[in-house]
């Protein structure tokens, strides 16, 4: 639960470290155990790079979309500085934005280099919950994305250096989401071992994670939820993903897209 560790006197955020560890593990699984045979390893690695770029941009853009209207409420109090711009860019990411950005950038890669989008996406999708699972441990360390106040033993007190509220015990929903993502990874990984029709693995993930996220959102307590009509932005996206997932789960008629 340490937000920072010190290596040779250098302060390193556990959040960033665990995200990188998650991406490294996920990439290794995608490269060495691909669900689709015949895609060159180099293309898998490059597609991961594109997905990473898309994920960073998408997660940031969605965070800004959700946050800026809330920040505008405080516009009289805001003092412009480069530090502020830096913090706006460096702090805060929304997973769903990353997912959308990642998928979009993989499609750009596939289009640019004449590869089949679903061949690439079905290698990468099974490892997304693995990366997410390790990333949520990073959230737990940083004290962000926390759950509702709860008495021990289900509630925990976060580290004083973390961003979680002090002097209150909170439900560690990050750990629950991490475990559920790990289970989802195992299920999708096994599911992807058999020859599936194009889009089925993506559809399975959209539905599986959509359900998990929709339910877990009710237990979240962090401030930036972006609530619209009683539901959070992530819940709205989960609802949207469900029919899209169902469509893909049926399998595309054409094997090559």
């Amino acid at each position, binding site marked *: 639960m340490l937000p920072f560790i010190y290596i040779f006197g250098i302060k*390193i*955020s556990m*959040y*960033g*470290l665990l*995200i*990188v560890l998650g991406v490294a593990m996920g990439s290794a699984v995608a490269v060495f155990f691909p669900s689709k045979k015949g895609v060159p390893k*180099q293309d898998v690695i*490059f597609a991961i*790079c*594109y997905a*990473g*770029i898309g994920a*960073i941009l998408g997660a940031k853009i969605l965070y800004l979309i959700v*946050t800026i209207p*809330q*920040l505008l409420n*405080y516009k009289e*109090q*805001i*003092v412009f500085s*480069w*530090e*502020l711009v*830096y*913090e*706006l*860019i*460096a*702090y*805060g*990411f929304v997973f769903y934005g990353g997912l959308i950005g990642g998928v979009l950038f993989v499609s750009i890669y596939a289009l640019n*280099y004449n590869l089949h989008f679903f061949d690439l996406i079905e290698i990468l999708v099974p490892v997304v919950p693995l990366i997410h699972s390790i990333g949520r441990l*990073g*959230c737990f360390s*940083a004290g*962000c*994305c926390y759950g509702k106040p709860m008495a021990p033993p289900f509630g925990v007190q976060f580290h004083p250096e973390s*961003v979680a509220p002090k002097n209150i015990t909170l439900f560690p929903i990050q750990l629950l989401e991490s475990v559920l993502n790990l289970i989802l990874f195992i299920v999708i990984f096994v599911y992807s071992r058999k020859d599936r029709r194009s889009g089925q693995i993506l559809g399975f993930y959209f539905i599986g994670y959509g359900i998990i996220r929709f339910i877990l959102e009710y237990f979240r307590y*962090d*401030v*930036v939820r972006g609530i619209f009509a009683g539901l959070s932005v992530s819940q709205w996206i989960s609802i949207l993903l469900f029919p899209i997932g169902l469509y893909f789960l049926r399998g595309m008629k054409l094997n090559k897209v």
Partner: protein
Amino acid sequence: MSENNTQENGIQAKSTQGNGKATASLVLGIIAVVCVFFGYGALLGIILGIIGLVLGINAKKAAPSGMATAGIVLSIIAIVVCVIGFIACVACVGILGSMTKGF
């Protein structure tokens, strides 16, 4: 004969273009790695790293070369160091706190 020449010219043009991109990727990768050690320069580092990575991949696909590989590797290192050192999942409360400080 002329068809062969056209084909060779096409391959050469592609290779030259790939070389230019590989050089650009390597240069951006080096600058990005240097930037990550200078506080707010990390932001510039991550941007240059992303551009360097895309150019490196493009160059490697057009005409594989050691320079393109070096550009890709350096850009990835720069992005990874930025992510570890500077990106934090901090709730908006923190940002609001820093924005309104002084009040």
